[in-house]
């Protein structure tokens, strides 16, 4: 990494270090990141996505997020006065924990022993000490996050607790050239269940870098439905890693919907660590205009009788580029594992590109695994059929795109969030596309 760029990260670190814990550990993480540098094409996992532009941008820590000193109640007048610190917290069908520019701007939520609050104000908690940093792994970007994170959501569900409403963690970014390193920690003790939604938005056309790490620990028999809706600003870079550690018989269901940002690279790492654990990683991306959307999934079957499912839909239009790179590893001891990957994609313009890379690595022979991937165009025979019924060409194409996206909404069945998601998706459909014919 060149000296100039390194100095930005050091400056950001110096800027925040007065207000955070574990400064030494953070400094070490920073040095490891600086030694490694940003990931590039030398890393096979980053074959399709370049972050070079981050090296040439004068990135800084978010200014508003540093003061006030820790301990100031969230929602203080200072924070409220920041116009960008007012994400629309209405319109969510559930409880909302709102963040702006990396900082909590709403009140904490507590109901009985169920807690949803700022992670920064709970670094002393036993569960946090035990799990924070233990799940995410040590990539360059998670190291940088470990060094520079200031806040994020902390969700803790005691054993057998079942909040009856979904929890929305909502983040709005509005500071130009800020780098935001949100850190979330989600702990579900044995038998607990919840629906968690992360929603990322930004001020239109503002460039910033959101580098998020979400660590999730699921106890025995715990069930988490985890929806992530990415609607970052059209000039934003979004990198994130969700890392999940699953105990026996726990179920993790993720639905990732990527609709915004100039560049989005989302990673989901799941460790099916104990028998009976299962995960379902579903998603939909729309890469239109000049957007670049890279999804990278990694599922580790580390115990017998574990199950994983992946159902993905992608659309690329304009000069958009979409990547679905998913690896499922079945370890030698993971007999009777069951893994299925499916990826269906629509290429809507001759200048768009979609790369699909499903990979199964199987190290024992007592498993059931399969994958399927397709990249196709809109079916002109279907378009003609609709036109022959009096529906004009554009409306016919829109109807077919909506139908394709509809399959992603079906994945939300049972969460009660379909009606919330639908208009977001409808607004993002690349309706005015070039006809590939």
């Amino acid at each position: 990494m060149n000296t100039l760029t390194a100095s930005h990260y050091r400056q950001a670190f110096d800027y925040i270090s007065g207000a955070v814990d574990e400064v030494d550990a953070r400094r070490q993480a920073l040095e490891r990141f600086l030694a490694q540098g940003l990931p590039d094409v030398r890393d096979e996992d980053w074959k399709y996505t370049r972050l070079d532009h981050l090296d040439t941008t004068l990135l800084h820590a978010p200014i508003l997020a540093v003061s006030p000193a820790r301990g100031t109640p969230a929602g203080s007048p200072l924070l409220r006065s920041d116009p960008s610190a007012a994400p629309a917290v209405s319109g969510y069908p559930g409880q909302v924990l709102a963040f702006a520019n990396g900082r909590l701007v709403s009140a904490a939520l507590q109901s009985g022993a169920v807690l949803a609050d700022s992670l920064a104000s709970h670094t002393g908690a036993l569960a946090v000490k035990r799990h924070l940093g233990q799940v995410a792994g040590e990539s360059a970007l998670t190291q940088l996050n470990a060094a520079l994170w200031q806040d994020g959501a902390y969700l803790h569900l005691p054993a057998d607790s079942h909040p009856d409403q979904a929890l929305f963690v909502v983040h709005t970014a509005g500071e130009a050239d800020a780098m935001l390193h949100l850190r979330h920690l989600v702990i579900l003790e044995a038998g607990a269940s919840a629906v968690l939604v992360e929603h990322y938005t930004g001020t239109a056309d503002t460039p910033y870098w959101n580098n998020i790490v979400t660590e999730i620990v699921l106890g025995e028999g715990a069930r988490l439905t985890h929806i992530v809706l990415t609607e970052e600003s059209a000039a934003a870079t979004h990198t994130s890693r969700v890392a999940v550690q699953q105990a026996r018989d726990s179920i993790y269901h993720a639905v990732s919907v990527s609709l915004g940002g100039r560049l989005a690279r989302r990673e989901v790492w799941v460790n099916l660590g104990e028998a009976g654990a299962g995960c379902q990683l579903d998603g939909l991306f729309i890469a239109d205009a000049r957007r670049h959307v890279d999804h990278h999934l990694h599922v580790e079957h580390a115990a017998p009788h574990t199950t994983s499912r992946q159902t993905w839909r992608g659309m690329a239009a304009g000069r958009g580029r979409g990547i679905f790179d998913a690896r499922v590893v079945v370890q030698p001891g993971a007999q009777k594992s069951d893994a299925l990957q499916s990826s269906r994609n629509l290429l809507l313009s001759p200048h768009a590109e979609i790369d699909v890379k499903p990979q199964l690595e199987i190290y024992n022979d007592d498993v059931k695994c399969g994958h399927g991937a397709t990249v196709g165009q809109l079916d002109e025979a279907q378009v003609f059929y609709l036109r022959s019924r009096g529906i004009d060409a554009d409306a016919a194409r829109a109807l077919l795109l909506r139908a394709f996206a509809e399959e992603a909404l079906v994945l939300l069945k049972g969460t009660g969030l379909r009606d919330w998601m639908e208009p977001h998706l409808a607004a993002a459909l690349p309706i005015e596309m070039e006809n590939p014919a």
Partner: protein
Amino acid sequence: MLEIRNLHVSIGDKPILAGIDLSVRAGEVHAIMGPNGSGKSTLAQVLAGREGYAVTQGSVRYLDQDLLALTPEARARAGVFLAFQYPLEIPGVANVQLLRTALNSARLARGESELDAMDFLDTVKGKLALLGMDESFLYRAVNEGFSGGEKKRNEILQMAVLEPRLAILDETDSGLDIDALKIVSRGVNALKSPERAMILVTHYQRLLNYIVPDHVHVLAGGRIVRSGGASLALELEDRGYGWLAPEAQEGARP
């Protein structure tokens, strides 16, 4: 209503239709019969506006308009309907959504108001009964997982809802067992009217036992080689197409 004059159509360099002349008046039912590869389905597709066919000569007038100059959707709104030989499956689009969008497109084109969901449902219920379909068909994805017979019935349901002026039924009898054939025929017969013309494209005479045509045309080698009344179909049933083949080959010669 429909005047086809000297219509020549090719796919790529290959001529398929080599000079079709056909007049269809309101209230008439025409059957177009012929062996496989005679160009029957091409004629149906060209009338509906399918891309990929080149009209190299001739004209098609429909209700005093140049039909070939219209987009497929404009033809549909002007009252042309094609029942597909192979109806498309459209996962993710509910039957009711297609029917209502299609009907409202036609209504707007006629200067009428759109039907809301309730009025539409009232309209469509009677048509469902006509074709022996229950209401659950409305909420299934268009043709997805339908049996062959259900797909054909669904085509006639669309026709019943859209009430076209000119209905072209492309091999609607193919793949139907006798019971399904009766249901489909009953539906089609119920839609006969003095204002509506129908063109039945079929390989076999069987359908014509149930839907009796006013005129029968035999298409071979891209031309109509024989026209007659309903009895011509019976003659074809007895003698096959072979006795017309020499004429067909002669006709196909440039």
